[in-house]
């Protein structure tokens, strides 16, 4: 028997929790499916556990992180149908009755739910940053280091180097400094002059002044530490015998070398579009964030009626904007399900939209200060783009020369994107490399088509699906 519900929210980060909180506040009910074992998403990962078991670490994990507890507390007390450890692997759109089937896996058993509304709040993932040698053990991402730090308080031993650009680099650096973990160097890859360019957006950013204040504090903390910071870094290479040992890079045409055990890379984050691509929703390319995101209207609804995308999954704009967007989608659904009146809906929406507008003021400033890298399309030939199938940039460029016109044809010709990660790690890079090689805009190059399951699962699980 299939469970039939009004609303399914996918993801329990700020956007998903906020949608749930809003819906439950006015007497509605929603099932929340989240891959993790506790609410918080990536940004507030393990917040409840840290508060309970390691409260002294809160001081250096920062106030932005601590803020998540406000959401999780309300969420836990209201969301009776919260299903942690649930991995959604397929959504089926039933055109006849306007319902959706959601397939998900929980502890190795797959189930199906039928629902009228879907709120996709699956957030963002770190932009994969292909550089020569990035597949060596010892090379990871800033987000991964931070995630382990939040989850278990553990950190990489040995010589640690952070490389890239973005608020997350500053945040992790400050957290590591706070925890007394040493960082050998920070390689800042933002291009020269970014700060001056960003100043143009400074007045609007003042509406979200607390971010500026926090950013200033983070930067100060790093300046006051004795960490060596290299600016305008280009041509970063990782190498080593079986694992990371050496880093080389250029600063204004001067070559530098460093010995390192761990390199944490970061070049911003991208909307997680697996589910929205699976649903074949319309997507647009953002030249500023250099990523695709689904097209949504001001309350988060997509080209498919009843399907909402909220939070960073609809275009990266941070945890607080995500929270407002989640609440707005929640209130729209409440009204459609007739829990509240239209007038009541509009009041709440206007309030959240106003607050969201102020909060979003920081985006143009941040996106210009830490611009999304334009060089991924130009990585050296030997750089591996598809890690699963070990396909290099050179191979992709070669098939383009032979008339290959897009990512799906490249996938067919090279197995690029066919591996176990299902194209999540190489999708954007393939679009970037092909865009440069074809001299076409990324929007016109397109992206991999996504087919179920969006995460691997055993055949046995599918065979037994109908028994559950």
């Amino acid at each position, binding site marked *: 028997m299939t469970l039939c519900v009004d609303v399914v929210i996918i993801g329990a980060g700020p956007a998903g929790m906020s949608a749930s909180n809003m819906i439950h506040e006015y007497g509605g009910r929603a099932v929340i499916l989240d891959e993790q074992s506790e609410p918080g998403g990536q940004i507030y990962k393990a917040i409840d556990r840290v508060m309970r078991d390691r409260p002294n670490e809160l001081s250096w994990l920062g106030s932005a992180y601590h803020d998540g507890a406000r959401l999780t507390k309300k969420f836990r007390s209201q969301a009776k149908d919260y299903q942690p450890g649930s991995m959604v692997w397929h959504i089926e759109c039933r055109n006849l009755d306007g319902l959706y089937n959601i397939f998900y896996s929980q502890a190795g058993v797959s189930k199906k739910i039928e629902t009228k509304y879907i709120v996709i709040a699956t957030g963002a993932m770190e932009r994969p940053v292909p550089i020569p040698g990035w597949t060596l053990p010892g090379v990871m991402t800033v987000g991964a280091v931070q995630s382990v730090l939040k989850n278990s308080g553990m950190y990489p031993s040995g010589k640690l180097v952070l490389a890239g650009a973005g608020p997350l680099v500053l945040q992790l650096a400050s957290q590591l400094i706070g925890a007394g973990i040493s960082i050998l160097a920070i390689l800042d890859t933002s291009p020269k002059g970014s700060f001056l360019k960003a100043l143009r957006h400074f007045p609007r950013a003042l509406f979200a002044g607390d971010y500026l204040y926090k950013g200033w504090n983070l930067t100060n903390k790093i300046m006051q530490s004795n960490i060596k910071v290299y600016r305008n870094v280009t041509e970063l290479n990782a190498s080593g015998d079986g694992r990371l040992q050496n880093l080389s890079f250029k600063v204004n045409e001067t070559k530098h070398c460093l010995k390192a055990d761990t390199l944490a890379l970061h070049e911003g984050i991208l909307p997680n579009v697996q589910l929205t691509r699976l649903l074949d929703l319309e997507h647009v390319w953002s030249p500023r964030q250099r990523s695709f995101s689904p097209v949504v209207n001001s309350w988060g609804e997509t080209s498919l009626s009843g399907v909402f995308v909220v939070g960073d999954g609809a275009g990266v704009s941070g945890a607080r904007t995500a929270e407002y967007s989640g609440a707005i989608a929640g209130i729209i659904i409440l009204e459609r399900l007739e829990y509240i009146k239209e007038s009541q809906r509009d009041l709440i929406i206007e309030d959240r939209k106003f607050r969201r507008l102020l909060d979003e003021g920081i985006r143009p400033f941040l996106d210009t200060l830490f611009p999304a890298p334009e060089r991924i399309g130009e990585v050296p030939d030997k750089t591996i783009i598809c890690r699963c199938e070990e396909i290099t940039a050179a191979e992709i460029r070669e098939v383009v020369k032979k008339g290959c016109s*897009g990512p799906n044809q490249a996938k067919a010709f090279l197995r690029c994107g066919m591996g176990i990660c299902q194209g999540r790690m190489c999708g954007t890079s393939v679009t970037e490399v092909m865009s440069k090689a074809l001299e076409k805009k990324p929007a016109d190059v397109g992206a991999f088509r996504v087919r179920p399951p969006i995460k691997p699962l*055993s055949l046995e699980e*599918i065979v037994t699906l109908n028994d559950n």
Partner: protein
Amino acid sequence: MTSDFIVIGGGLVGAAVSYGLLKLGATVTILDEGDTAFRASRGNFGLVWVQSKGDGMHEYATWSRESSDLWPNFAELLVEETGINVGHHRPGGLELCLDEAEYMDFENSINRMHNQPNVAENGRRMISGDEVRRMEPSVGPEVVGASYCPYDGIVNPLYTLRALHQKCIESGLIYRPDHEVKKIIPQIRGFKIITNEGYFLSDKVILAAGNGNKALGEFVGLDIPTGPERGHIVVTERTSPLFNYVLGAIRQTDEGTVMLGATKENVGFDSGFNFEMAAKIIDKAVRKIPALKKLRMIRSWSALRIMSPDGFPIYEESSNFPGAFVITCHSGVTLAAAHALKLAPELLGNDFNGKFNAFSPKRFDVR
């Protein structure tokens, strides 16, 4: 832009025919659609299959067998010419039966094909469940028997397509992706092909556009009664080599992934994914090979076959507009070798319809 041949469609059929034409010194332009077109050549299973082909048309049985025999040399030729190993193997194929009814169906098909006149001996025979398990130890207890044919094989269809494209381009092919053909205008001599990116001229035009042929045929007096039939395929993660034979709807690739097929649905031009179909495929596959249960599924897709009313290929030169040909089939992989090496030369000859009389769409008029 003028060439001897314009081939509409850059899939396995169009690329194989172009390969053959270029070898014979013709100039060829391929007009192809974009990255997200309905592409049967990108969605197929990769069997070079003989055993079930031609039940009802002995010429097709013979043609499939001929192609299967050409394939080993063809594959070698492609490696030599392009460095791409297309992964051709001919270990023989087993169609596993899960019940007596299925067994009977295969047995009846073998008898019918034997009774057709002039059909090439294809060595196909029914074998018992126990014999199957001796040949292929991973086969489970539910399997009651199988239809076996020693000439069945496999190839990587994607690498084949890539190798054909590469060799064609090196031989002077003009390849134009993102060129959707809007109209074909027969000229006093030759054809004018209008695309979204301008027009092209040629002496001869070949329709190899799969399910797009039907509409294109109307411009050159060809009635092509084909329609889409949707099939699903499921792919697992990589694993160590599992099989001695090709198991019809279960095939392991050289890379180690296992492909599971195949379903048939008539849903029009919709290559969407139907979960029920994938579940059916997987259910059958794990009953046949229980060890598959533990593997993880990593991808699946559906694609549209190009089906004629009787399932056999359609080859025809237009009698109203000589020089316009249609070549369509749902076995672009099996027949790639025959299309490249046997069919292409006939396009340069004077008696195409005589050579391929059996495959004329006129066969549908009689019924």
